[in-house]
């Protein structure tokens, strides 16, 4: 079938006449650090969380998501892997649901359907975390260090070069690379990349 794979043709249906016949993060200057690291917010279980205050964790990884963005949802398996791999390495990973109208129940159902249970999830209905970090699209990753510095902001990887276009082979896993660098106390190669996805819904 390999021969068949990349061939194409054009067909015309003919009646014989004898019979009649992106969102891209941009413009506004984005913060290099979270100004107020004391920001706290309830997670969907009702527990108070201060995602920028890291007691023991090496870094806080906020993944901004929306429950109805196909690009955000396509990353669910990678998000699940990130939690399992980097959670055990001392990173605090949080899903931040940014649709102002989403309910806690909807979030819980979404996490179950996409096998994301186990994550700490926050409904950022007033966009407190969006404003603190300057996140613009979903999915977008923001990694903060204990001093509030934003060590990495941008895409998870290069699966989507633009809205509506999906790369067949992922060649750059930027978030993983950044987290591995932090884990190994090395400089991050690219601290800012462009996240491609759905703009964060307006309040």
């Amino acid at each position, binding site marked *: *079938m*390999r*021969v*068949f*794979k*990349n*061939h*194409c*043709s*054009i*067909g*015309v*249906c*003919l*009646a*014989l*006449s*004898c*019979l*009649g*016949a*992106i*969102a891209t993060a941009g413009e506004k200057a984005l913060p290099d650090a979270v100004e107020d690291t004391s920001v706290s917010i309830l997670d969907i279980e009702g527990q108070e969380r201060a995602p920028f205050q890291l007691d023991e964790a090496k870094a806080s990884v906020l993944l901004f998501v929306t429950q*109805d*963005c*196909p690009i955000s*949802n*396509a*990353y*669910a*398996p*990678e998000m699940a892997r990130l939690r399992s791999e980097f959670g055990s390495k001392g990173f605090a990973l949080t899903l931040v649901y940014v*649709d*102002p*109208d989403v309910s806690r129940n909807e979030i819980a159902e979404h996490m179950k*359907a*996409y*096998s994301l249970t186990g994550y700490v999830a926050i409904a950022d209905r007033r966009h407190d975390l969006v404003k603190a970090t300057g996140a613009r699209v979903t999915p977008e990753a923001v990694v903060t260090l204990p001093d509030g510095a934003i060590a990495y902001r941008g895409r998870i990887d290069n699966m989507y*070069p633009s*809205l*509506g*276009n*999906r*790369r*067949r*082979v992922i*060649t750059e896993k930027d978030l993983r690379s950044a987290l591995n660098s932090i884990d190994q106390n090395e400089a991050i190669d690219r601290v800012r990349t462009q996240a491609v996805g*759905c*703009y964060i*819904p*307006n309040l």
Partner: protein
Amino acid sequence: MKQRIHHCLVATVLLATSFAGSTARSAETITFSEHIAPIVFENCASCHRSKEAAPFSLLNYRDVQKRGELILTVVEDRYMPPWHVQSKDYVFQDHRGLTETEVALISDWVESGMAEGDSSKLPALPKFTGGWQLGEPDLVVSMKEGYTLYAEGPDIYRNFVVPLNLDEDKWIQAIKFRPGVRSVVHHSLFYYDTSGDARQRDAADPVPGFKTMGRGTERGGAIGGWALGGTPKMLPDGLAYRLPKGSDLILSTHFHPSGKEETEVSTVGFYFADEPPSQRFTGIQLPPVFGALAGINIPAGDSAYTKTDSFVLPVDVKAFGISAHAHYLGKCMSMTATLPGGEVKELMTIPDWDFSWQESYRFDGYISLPAGTRLDSEVVWDNSEDNFNNPNVPPKRVR
């Protein structure tokens, strides 16, 4: 890229002429109820509503205001509403797309803060026909068992065999395809198989259906297809596909994994003619057999490998539709008709082939092509690293 440059030039001219209109209407006066809702309801809502393929609804002010910037981005890019074919000489049915004025209006509305306006001026939502849009089908069949696809990974191409158990030949005027899980089924091409080969291949594969790209059987024929956003249509003037008795239906389906595991059971409704048609029609492929005999041999890295083919019509013909097909490396394709007097007509150009949108296009009325008309097709492939659809990184020679 040629296409994008072309768009830029057109946009420049049109924006220059529409600027006066834009300033004449103060941005504050642009409201959802009066100006934006009619555009969105007419052009977006048929897919952007509950239980349809699009990911979210666009049926009221909040739906649209919440996503104002996203909507503006995709309409400015011409990614939405999706439409990929063009012809300077002919009009296609069911054309989707916004005018420059409509895009400018959305832009002004988003820039000016997205006012809702007087809700008494809100137009009524269009009446959408659910279920079987062409009425109750003559025969409804479904996949015998559900096919479960993974949450992530490469796109899936799989053929499913559905026995039809017909004891006489039938003539198909239309087929309506209903995906079970709209978020994962991207398109499905329909074939019939009279040999039983497909049934055997299905039986030999432990998972429902069998893996292939194409019909996957030697005997039988193509009887249409469905792609995301497509609406079923009757063939014109009583034309019909023959469906021999004893045939199995093959659904050759393309899936996009969605991020979660899903199980698909597709359903198909057939609309049969009461009697055999008095007219016949045929398709012409250029190059034929999906290009399998065209000696395609694309060097790794070649960003514009081109093949052309032509065919002179031996009889007078009336054309009613056109389609194109390519896979990951397809870049652009076109077909022209050179009439016997030498006049060249553009039947179709797809300047920026997107593998994700495989549609058939119906001309608005018949196109008369006299005997002696030469059809010329050109297909261009991009086997470079810049083609993000390229499944080979680094690129490999493709034959």
